[in-house]
């Protein structure tokens, strides 16, 4: 799988931790299509800062708990 973005995320793990929330449920709550949630989980799309905050708010965690950006020497 090609991962064009360097931004990693734990959205999938957080969904399962939140009572196995479906991708469709998360999509509805942040106002995007299910395909966009899939693209984010597969690191094919880096969401805007606003959408990132919305996702973090859904899971009631901080931004760093959802998204990670590795240091140069870790990439």
């Amino acid at each position, binding site marked *: 799988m090609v991962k064009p973005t360097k931004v990693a995320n734990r959205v999938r793990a957080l969904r399962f931790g939140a009572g196995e929330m479906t991708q469709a449920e998360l999509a509805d709550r942040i106002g*995007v299509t299910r395909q966009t949630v899939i693209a984010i989980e597969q*690191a*094919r799309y880096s969401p805007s800062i606003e959408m990132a905050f919305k996702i973090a708010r859904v899971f009631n965690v901080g931004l760093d708990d959802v998204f990670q950006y590795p240091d140069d020497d870790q990439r």
Partner: protein
Amino acid sequence: MPFDEKFTWVSLVVSVVVPGVYFMVVLGQLGGGPVGQIAYQVPMLVAIGAMILVTIAGTILVGIGTGVAIELSGSGSTEDIGRTDERDREISRRGLLAGYVAASVGAVGVLAITMLGFDHFWIANVLYLSFVASSLVSGVVKLVAYRRGF
């Protein structure tokens, strides 16, 4: 598949098929006499009109098909049809930009053959080809962005 991606597929297929038929019909007349005598005007207008109408009809059919598929499978929501988000808009912007570049390159070509005194037939057809190329490049860039990410 997002509705915008389906729409892009419809647009791309129409942009291949309709101009393909047009160029087969018109360029097939080359060699039968001076290009100035080839009646390309009506076929080109028909092709442009057909592209618009077929794209609209195709989009409606895809929308209906998507709705029927959602109802039959019971998964998803018909409210998702036509829903767009920031990713769709960003992909659309990338496609438009790529299409603009393709159209600009075509326009330079049209300018060149006009200055070189080519027949109206070639000027009109290279211009039409530029529009088609713009649509094709835009569609391909959007589909690659949808499939591979960015």
